[in-house]
């Protein structure tokens, strides 16, 4: 039987300077904090990061950015992270914004081996500037090229040893998309079960897309409820 489990350190062994890294998560849910911490330890520099947002100051990918490891951020919204916005405004971080669902589609297109998608989202806005316009059945659309990465860092609620993944609630978000779109896909999981124990119809990401599975063990506190978001 295939066994893809390994330590976080082994999993990121070939991760290096100047690479492109996709990181799952939308806020805390689905953010692979353990794997991010491993990249901070490795201190790889000049990374291009693809993530929906930059978490919040002092947390998750924000720590990578604050640590000066990120050259470029491809994202959707930074509204909850004034630290990263400040770095962007200072010119210390290059940021490229996409509409959230278009960012998702670009990543998905990368995973699906497509060259691009064509969308009319933003067609009447400044997003049109410098973008290739494609006519399709008489309508104008913007060409949005596919995004792929060297590494995808994924957080799953459960994995089996073959890399089949299940996500929990809103921790799904970008994870299943990114899990298809990188040359090396690393999934951290809260629980690892024997292969065959997850009912096949309930698997969200087939193990065929996943290269390494890392068990998180006892959940560190950053995975918990953010007190300042409780109303």
């Amino acid at each position, binding site marked *: 039987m295939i066994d893809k489990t390994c330590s976080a350190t082994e999993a990121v062994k070939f991760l290096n300077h100047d690479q492109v890294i996709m990181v799952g998560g*939308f*806020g*805390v*849910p*689905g953010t692979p904090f353990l794997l991010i911490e491993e990249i901070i330890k490795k201190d790889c520099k000049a990374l291009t990061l693809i993530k*929906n*947002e930059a978490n919040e100051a002092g947390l998750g990918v924000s720590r990578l950015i604050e640590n000066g490891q990120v050259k470029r951020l491809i*994202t*959707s*919204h*930074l*509204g*909850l992270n004034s630290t990263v*916005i400040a770095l*962007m405004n200072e010119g210390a971080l290059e*940021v490229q*914004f*996409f*509409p*959230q*669902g*278009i*960012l*998702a*589609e670009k990543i*998905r297109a990368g995973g699906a081996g497509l060259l691009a998608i064509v*969308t*009319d*989202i*933003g067609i*009447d*806005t*400044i*997003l049109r500037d410098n973008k290739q316009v494609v006519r399709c059945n008489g309508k104008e659309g913007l060409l949005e090229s596919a995004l792929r990465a060297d590494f995808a860092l994924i957080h799953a*609620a459960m994995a089996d040893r073959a890399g089949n993944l299940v*996500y*929990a*609630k*809103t*921790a*799904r*978000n*970008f*994870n*299943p*998309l990114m899990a298809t779109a990188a040359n090396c896909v690393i999934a951290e999981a809260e629980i690892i079960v024997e292969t065959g124990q997850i009912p096949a119809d309930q698997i969200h990401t087939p193990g065929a897309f996943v290269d390494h599975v890392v068990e998180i063990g006892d959940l560190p506190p950053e*995975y*918990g*409820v*953010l*007190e300042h*978001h*409780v*109303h």
Partner: protein
Amino acid sequence: MSLRSEIYHQNMGYLSIMSIDPKIKISKRAAQEIAPGQIINLGIGIPTLIPSHLPPNMPLSIHSENGVIGVGGSVDRQHADRNLIDAGGTYIDTIPGASYCDSALSFALVRGGRLDITFLGTLEVSEKGDLANWIIPGKFAPGIGGAMELAQKARRLIITTTHTTKQGKAKILKECRLPLTASKCVDLIITELSVFRITPKEMILEEIAEESDLETVARHTEGSFRVSENLTTF
């Protein structure tokens, strides 16, 4: 000035204040736009107050773009689930029949035409229905998030906003000055003073707040509008 005297609240941006909170007034009126069984998305701010004005047990699916269809409401610390937030980061619960999906399917619902109404706040809105609410160049540029897709592709886009800025400047303009979120996308503008309907031809004042009057509305609205022959109060 009318008898219903207008008080400008510094740092509030609300006009024509009666005893009722303008946010309540706007969100209560907005709630009336929802039909049973619809799928809606609520932006941050005033839109989040809308569900509290709906009849109990009204069938409704609240979509949050981080991948949940069937939001219940916000929950307290005791009920907060670390895996269950809305797109604003608030801990929520769900209604029976709720489902989760990835970010691609979540926005497929929006762009594919399954979202009945988006309720959003705004910085500016034009008489043509153009919306500008995502960027103030050089000042406020946190990114796009879901705003463009929610604005451009919902079957109806309803803007719930204070009638003016905190500085008392008109938000309902002839033309947006800020970069657009989407053009010709707004169907209805609900403020504490008025309800405007936007058609491909014109902006129409359909309702006026009972605490306000036509003169007040006109003074604080830069965009041209026609007063409906069936003007009512709310």
